[in-house]
């Protein structure tokens, strides 16, 4: 029973990891940018959520109404103002610049909020649970998973059914020719980063309700996001959800065997899949 429970909890946790990963995946897919600061941006979103709940006295989920557009705006400005200038044939500049950004965000959060762990108060949502046969499922994990599925479905729809998604795919395929179609690639990249950070906002708020956080936890979220993306296969959004679920299940099952093995089990699952399927489980079919 413990085992079944662990698997189910792991699946639900995977939803959160998929949310960490979706923005990374989107950015890499559209502009081949590996954003080292992604985890710190998730933490930034959590802090913005915290401030919003405190200042406006609203529920963390209501704070999404503020944090999502703010993070999207930050994403657009960051891309147009900084990251676009790092993109080119050389992959090193974006890595270095986003690494620097990661350090800056962490230090700014330390200055602004101190190193003390913080948490958002979501009231009954944190403790409420639903009985499913012998299992008791937390409402928050269930909601997180449902939101993850909805977000990924929305991203998928945007990518494959809208003019914006067409612009993303075309720019990803061939930047030169995309520009001949009247697309300003800097603007397209700005919109992609805005969308990615909008998703990051959701991830950050759900993270901040689920666990306590401090300015240093971004790196760990980045790793989980990376692992989910790679397991699922680069550029495949539903694959990213599966990747998150596999990572979540490995962690919770590992923790049932030995509480100290949670993170290790996740990393081992990642390495095993990478060894067996170097392109991930569902790589995007190219060409």
């Amino acid at each position, binding site marked *: 029973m413990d085992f079944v429970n662990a698997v189910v909890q792991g699946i639900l946790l995977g939803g959160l990891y998929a949310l960490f990963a979706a923005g990374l995946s989107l950015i890499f897919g559209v502009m081949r940018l590996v954003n080292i600061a992604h985890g710190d941006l998730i933490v930034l979103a959590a802090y913005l959520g915290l401030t919003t709940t405190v200042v406006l006295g609203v529920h963390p989920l209501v704070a999404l109404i503020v944090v999502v557009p703010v993070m999207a705006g930050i994403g657009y400005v960051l891309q147009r103002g900084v990251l676009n200038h790092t993109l080119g044939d050389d992959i090193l500049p974006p890595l270095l610049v986003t690494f620097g950004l990661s350090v800056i965000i962490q230090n700014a959060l330390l200055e602004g909020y101190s190193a003390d762990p913080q948490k958002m108060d979501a009231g009954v949502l944190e403790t409420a649970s639903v009985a499913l046969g012998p299992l008791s499922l937390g409402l928050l994990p269930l909601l997180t998973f449902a939101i993850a599925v909805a977000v990924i479905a929305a991203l998928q729809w945007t990518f494959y059914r809208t*003019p914006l998604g*067409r*612009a993303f*795919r*075309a720019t*990803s*395929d*061939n930047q*030169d*020719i*995309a*520009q*001949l*179609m*009247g*697309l*300003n*690639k800097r603007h397209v990249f700005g919109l992609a980063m805005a969308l990615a950070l909008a998703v990051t906002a959701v991830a950050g708020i759900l993270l901040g309700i689920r666990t306590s956080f401090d300015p240093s936890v971004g790196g760990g979220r980045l790793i989980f996001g990376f692992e989910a993306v790679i397991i699922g296969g680069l550029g495949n959004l539903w694959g990213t959800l599966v990747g998150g679920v596999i990572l979540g299940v490995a962690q919770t099952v590992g923790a049932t065997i030995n509480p100290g093995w949670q993170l290790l089990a996740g990393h081992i699952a990642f390495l095993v899949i990478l060894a067996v399927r170097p392109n991930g489980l569902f790589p995007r079919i*190219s*060409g």
Partner: protein
Amino acid sequence: MPEPILTLTGLNAFHGDFQALYGVDLEVNEGEVLAIIGANGAGKTTLLRSIAGLIGNEASQITYRGRPIGNARPDVVAKMGLAMVPEGRQLFPSLSVEENLMIGGRVNRAGPWNLRRVYDLFPILEERKAQASTSLSGGQQQMVAIGRALMANPDLIMFDEISLGLAPVIIRDIYKALPGIVGGGMSAVIVEQDITKALAVSSRVYCLQEGRVSLKGRSDAVSREDIARAYFGVE
């Protein structure tokens, strides 16, 4: 005296440190079909990419309807009414046939061309519209590339070696469609290795040799000998 829609004045274009064009003077008149010929590496693609804004130049070296565009961004140039059918087609592999055409219409210029008319011009594309563009034959891909450029309703359309790598029958079909494309007052620049084809469809011709204009004249007036000399630089 016809009005030029596009004028190049002393265009020097570079690939990094490498200079590919040297002081090219050229004009395209309103409504004409201009052919550009030249050997491999003469600079034909460089010329078209410069006009399209993919290679940055001094602003004044390229003017379009009197406006300097030598340093304009490619998306801005596209919105002004310049479209290109690039060398090697370069369709978007993650887009279906119809999506490739639709993205061509993104520049949102008014004009006669729309999906319906492109499908009327190339009916096979309508049958294949939901397929991945990469699944088409070379000739069909070229039709998509042409349709994609037309969807922008350009005033000036540039073709870079549309017959490259295609079977003769296909080339004939595509060239048969050309009058229907440029007949409506659209100006065109055609870069072509096949000199006979180039001369047959154009009113004037330029020959490039190692980045310089080595010959210009009326397509029905230049002689084979002139062209051979301009092409290879031999006496």
